[in-house]
């Protein structure tokens, strides 16, 4: 319950500001601004916990306004918000307290009472500029330019350039495959021929990409394994067709043949 005098908040050493992390930094700046607002309201001091709580609520209010406005813009099919989105967000946040004209959905947005109250507030108040000079951020932004993707701008102008580029098309366009969906234990798996060249495979594997045509994997359930030269498969310990207890999966050098699913009787 230590009291914090507002003068101390304003005279905060700039060094302490610089040593903070990015989220703490913005929080500290907001705390100074909130302390200034409280001082003009008439308070002489504040409990540190109360000031921090109010700062937290201020940041939440800002973010809620922004999210509400941007979601309203997005639902109208726009990426950039305009004045109407902001006024809607203001009305949305003032609906808890209530305002004149809240019951009229057809009222003109530019004459909505939260906006008018805001106008009156601005005209009636004196300016309270921020106490501390903020360190210039322009140097940082020059050092880290946003990576621009030229391929995006040419082929797809609707995609912003700051998004990462599309991957190589060969990785996601495949010849038609018929992979059985999901874990269909009862499906019969047919053997596929390996048609790819050896060199192609090596080059693809060298690039850390999965080959498109891979060996099929069969799952054979049951204790009695087929002795017919199996090529590739797994065995799951089962009794009477139900997986019980020990779920040991063993790798057997089975051959891929017309391996029908068989249940032990």
């Amino acid at each position, binding site marked *: 319950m230590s*009291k914090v005098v507002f003068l101390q908040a304003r005279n905060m050493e700039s060094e302490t500001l610089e040593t903070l992390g990015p989220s703490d930094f*913005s929080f500290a*700046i*907001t705390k100074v*601004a*909130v302390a*200034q*607002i*409280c001082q*003009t*309201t*008439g*308070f*002489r*001091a*504040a*409990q540190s*916990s*109360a*000031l921090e*709580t*109010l700062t937290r*609520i*201020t*940041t939440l*209010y*800002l*973010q809620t*306004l*922004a*999210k509400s*406005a*941007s979601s309203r813009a997005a639902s109208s099919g726009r*990426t*950039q*918000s*305009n*004045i109407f989105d*902001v006024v809607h967000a*203001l009305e949305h946040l003032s609906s*808890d*307290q209530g305002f004149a004209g809240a019951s009229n959905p057809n009222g*003109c947005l*530019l*004459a909505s009472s939260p*906006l008018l*109250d*805001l*106008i009156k*507030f*601005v*005209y009636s*108040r004196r*300016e*309270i*500029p*921020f106490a501390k000079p*903020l360190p210039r*951020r322009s140097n940082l932004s020059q050092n880290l330019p946003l990576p621009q993707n030229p391929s995006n701008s040419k082929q797809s102008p609707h995609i912003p350039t700051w998004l990462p580029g599309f991957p190589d098309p060969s990785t996601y366009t495949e010849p038609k495959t018929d992979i059985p969906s999901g874990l269909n234990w009862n499906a019969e798996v047919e053997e596929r021929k390996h048609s790819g060249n050896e060199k192609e495979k090596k080059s693809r594997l060298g690039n850390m990409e999965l080959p498109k045509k891979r060996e099929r994997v069969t799952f054979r359930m049951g204790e009695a394994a087929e002795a017919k030269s199996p090529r590739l498969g797994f065995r799951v310990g089962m009794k009477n067709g139900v997986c019980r207890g020990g779920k040991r999966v063993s790798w057997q050098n089975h051959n891929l043949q017309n391996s029908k699913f068989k249940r032990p009787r």
Partner: protein
Amino acid sequence: MNQNQGGNDARHDDDSALSDFLASLMDYTPTIPDELVEHYLAKSGFQCPDVRLIRLVAVATQKFVAEVASGALQQCKARQSAVVKDKRDKQQKDKRLILTMEDLSKALREYGVNVKHQEYFADSPSTGMDPASRDE
């Protein structure tokens, strides 16, 4: 015709009032600096090239905080006027209006924000108990 013109005039008035206001916003410096507001707006996905809208959001937040602070101030003053016994005490307390968690939570409750606050923290489970009943 007259009604339509009246309606259009009203809208023009609103538009002009708003554009005047937005122009005056550029002269007014909100307490919350623009860079900070831009940081939080970018964090929330708000994209807008217009600087006046950023100022509008900053001013709206400032108004909100000022309202909450004035509500807390009223709570503080109401509590002081109830407690006052001597005139000297009241004058001394007026100079030291302190923002406390109690006043803040009462003021925030009007805005739908519930702030619960611990009354105190105890060092051990036997703090505050009778010394005779404490285990030794």
